[in-house]
């Protein structure tokens, strides 16, 4: 066993996180101490974690193991740092640093939980996520996993005085526990009767195919619950808006990725691929989630709910990539598997960047305006130029426009899909092009959603007079946002760097690394002749065209500028009420995908003197799947309640009879 050269400092950094959290309790009420001092330090620690995680991605990095003298007697904690955990640590560190910086400027006096307690929960959340990806035995994994769920629950319920937030928190906690239960069962199957809880033993143990499938299905259920895969997504659109914005960013940007990590670890590493239908199932669920998320995001009117549904969409795309990788690997097509896996990983990284960026931007908007309903925002680009500019980067990235990072991963995913006709299975060959079509449609819908998001919040005219007093974000918040936006640009312009970062993981999980592109800014994963993309050249071209246009316009029109009110198409005046609303913008989608939604609508009668239009769009899954389960649970509970008689003698009789029956067994 080699000395833990990386693991020891890594563990030290995680301990520093925990200490920062504990230090917040010294002066729990002091925002200055907790937010302005401890959170920036936490951001520095996150950078350190990212650096060590990045070091694990270098070529020829041998996995590092370490057995900690912690845990139960005879059941110590095992740690392991390999390329896969390194990648997710880098993701956690890079995005976590931006979120922590933003949070340093975000938390204000007198909002819900004391800042010190919030800081503790926040840093415990970060540390537990790092431990999840480092765990090398089921025991530590579950401990870290549950710590992650609990700390995030408390963060979601920060403003616990509001009943809806309590309800959202409870739903989240419930789903988290159902998922954790599935994972516990999954590990129970995985050890295969050997009672060895280390991942090494599970990797080596050959399970019968049927049991391996059971383990995979349990893992897909458990991790799917955490990731918000349809139909296990119901907690996500409730919990994300309920949490404070930095927490939403952490949950959406980082925590959902631990589920992706878990599925990769269990499905592709511990179970080493398995049957081809596993990949097909993951892919189908991913595609369904992607479509569902995009369509639902288009009709939302709350900006954080919109982003939450967009998270479902992106997680769907990531799972699609993972599923495709598993499918290709099962047919022995390693290069293709590596391509799909790299696409999924880079998309996970990208999503951590741009979704965190957008959630944080909504946080700034929320603080500046106290509004989160899209119907009451608008025109903020004038009041909040910094946030508007940085959010624009995130919006373009998430919409998958070149030269930003969203384009890179979606392009890679489509490349992977386009190369699949080589799969030696007629049925799958028919299905996969459909998947490619769904991915393309999803990407288009995501663009539509983002136009709505950005246009309604930042463009046009303010819909409420109070928006005139909105102020821009503070400098700490700007640093956080700028860091994430910079990441979006960097991955988009230098895609080969990101692709190199996935090489170690694809080597380990798909059996091969992708071929290198000609330059850091130029990727050609399949064949240079077939398809290649260079972010930097595209950026240069775009900048060139803009510059030429700018110069030409200045030359030709110089001195002939005439200022008039915009869009004055025959109307002498224009009021904010004439703008397209969020509902109006989503209306075509609501029409086209009508059967997907459960719509309740109140239309006023023509003679109504005070007309009121109300629409409520619900999730069909909630009514068709979850409410019946709730009803069944209640029924069982009522049946059990028959035992409750309220008479002491009867209760004593129960235990007496139980005792007698047990004794009879002994007899």
């Amino acid at each position, binding site marked *: 066993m080699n000395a833990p050269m990386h693991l020891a400092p890594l563990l030290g950094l995680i301990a520093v996180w925990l200490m920062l959290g504990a230090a917040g309790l010294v002066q729990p009420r002091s925002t200055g101490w907790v937010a302005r001092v401890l959170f920036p330090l936490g951001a520095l620690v996150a950078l350190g974690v990212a650096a060590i995680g990045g070091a694990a991605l270098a070529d020829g990095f041998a996995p590092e193991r370490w057995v900690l003298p912690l845990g139960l007697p005879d059941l110590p904690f095992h740690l392991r740092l390999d390329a896969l955990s390194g990648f997710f640590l880098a993701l956690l560190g890079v995005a976590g640093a931006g979120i922590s910086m933003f949070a340093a400027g975000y938390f204000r006096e007198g909002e819900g939980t004391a800042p010190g307690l919030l800081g503790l929960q926040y840093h415990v959340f970060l540390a537990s996520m790092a431990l999840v990806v480092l765990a090398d035995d089921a025991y530590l994994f579950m401990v870290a996993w549950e710590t992650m769920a609990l700390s995030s629950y408390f963060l979601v319920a920060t403003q616990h005085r509001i009943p809806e937030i309590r309800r959202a928190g409870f739903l989240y906690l419930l789903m988290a526990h159902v998922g954790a239960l599935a994972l516990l069962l999954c590990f129970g199957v995985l050890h295969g009767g050997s009672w060895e809880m280390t991942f090494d033993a599970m990797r080596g143990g050959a399970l019968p195919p049927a049991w391996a499938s059971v383990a995979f299905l349990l893992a897909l259920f458990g991790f799917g619950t955490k990731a918000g895969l349809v139909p296990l997504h119901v907690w996500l659109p409730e919990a994300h808006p309920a949490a404070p914005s930095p927490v939403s960013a952490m949950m959406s940007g980082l925590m959902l990725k631990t589920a992706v990590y878990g599925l990769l670890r269990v499905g592709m590493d511990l179970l080493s691929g398995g049957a081809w239908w596993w990949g097909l199932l993951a892919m189908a669920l991913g595609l369904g989630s992607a479509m569902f998320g995009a369509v639902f995001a288009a009709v939302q009117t709350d900006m954080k709910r919109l982003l939450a549904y967009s998270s479902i969409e992106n997680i769907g795309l990531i799972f699609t990539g993972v599923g495709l990788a598993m499918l290709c690997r099962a047919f022995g097509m390693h290069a293709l598997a590596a391509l799909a896996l790299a696409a999924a990983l880079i998309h996970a990284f990208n999503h951590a960047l741009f979704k965190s960026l957008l959630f944080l931007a909504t946080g700034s908007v929320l603080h500046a305006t106290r509004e989160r309903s899209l119907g009451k925002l608008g025109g903020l680009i004038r009041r909040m130029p910094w946030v508007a500019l940085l959010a624009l980067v995130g919006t373009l990235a998430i919409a998958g426009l070149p030269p930003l990072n969203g384009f890179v991963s979606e392009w890679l995913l489509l490349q992977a899909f386009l190369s699949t006709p080589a799969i030696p299975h007629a049925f799958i060959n028919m299905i996969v092009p459909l998947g490619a079509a769904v991915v393309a449609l999803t990407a288009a819908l995501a663009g539509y959603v983002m136009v709505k998001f950005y246009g309604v919040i930042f463009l046009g005219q303010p819909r409420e007079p109070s928006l005139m007093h909105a102020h821009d974000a503070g400098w700490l918040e700007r640093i956080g946002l700028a860091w994430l936006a910079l990441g979006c640009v960097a991955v988009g312009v230098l895609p080969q760097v990101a692709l190199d970062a996935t090489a170690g993981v694809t080597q380990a999980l798909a059996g091969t690394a992708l071929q290198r592109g000609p330059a850091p800014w130029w990727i050609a994963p399949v064949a240079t002749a077939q398809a290649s993309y260079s972010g930097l050249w595209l950026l240069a071209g775009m900048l060139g065209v803009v510059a030429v246009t700018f110069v030409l316009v200045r030359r030709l029109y110089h001195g002939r500028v005439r200022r008039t009110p915009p869009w004055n198409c025959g109307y002498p005046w224009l009021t904010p009420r004439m703008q397209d609303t969020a509902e109006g913008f989503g209306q075509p989608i609501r029409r086209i995908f009508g059967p997907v939604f459960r719509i309740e609508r109140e239309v006023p009668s023509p003679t109504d003197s005070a007309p009121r239009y109300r629409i409520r769009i619900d999730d069909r899954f909630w009514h068709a799947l979850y409410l019946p389960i709730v009803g069944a649970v209640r029924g069982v509970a009522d049946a059990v309640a028959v035992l*409750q*008689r*309220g*008479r*002491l*003698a009867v209760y*004593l009789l129960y235990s*007496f009879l139980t005792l*007698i029956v047990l004794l009879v067994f002994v*007899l």
Partner: protein
Amino acid sequence: MSALPFATQLLHVLAAGLLLLSFAMLTQRRTRRLVVLLAWQGAVLTASTLLIAATAHLPHLYWSAALTLTVKVGLLPWLLLRLVRRLGVERDSEPLVNVPTLMLVGLALVIFAFGLAQPISALATTVTRQTLGIALAVILLAFLMLIARRTAVTQVIGFLALENGLFFAATSTTYGMPMVIELGIALDVLVGVFVFGIFFFQIREQFDSLDLQHLEALKED
């Protein structure tokens, strides 16, 4: 049977006395008498523990016997009698099941307990192994009393009788438990009785009675 040494025979007599006392408690309706019977049970326990200590040469059992004497013969009955006087619950109301039925069920339980103890006694090596059946019977009878009684004070007495049976089972199979555990149990029982005492006053304040039937109102519909 004649080969049994005198000490063992004496122990059997004491055990039989314990069983008899349990039946007496099952039928007794006056609360004050019930407490006295409980004290007697404690006295028999003390005697049997002393006897075992002397025959098996186990000095720690002397301490155990002394503890039993102070707590179960002295302190607890005194506390309970004071409680009965201050609460004014001289007479228990009618038990839930009538006394003859209760006796018959008790008989069945004793037979069951002896049948149960047979294989275990065969394995044990202590001089007291024959008494395990009686110990089990005392436990089950105390449980029966817990079920059949209505008022809160008699519930506590039943609970203490149950503890007596457990203690007797422990001394007869393994020569008693380690001293630390025994001290812990004694403390638990003592604290338990104190807590019950506080509850009694609260219950009476709330319902003007110690009849447990009133607690049925607490059930959630």
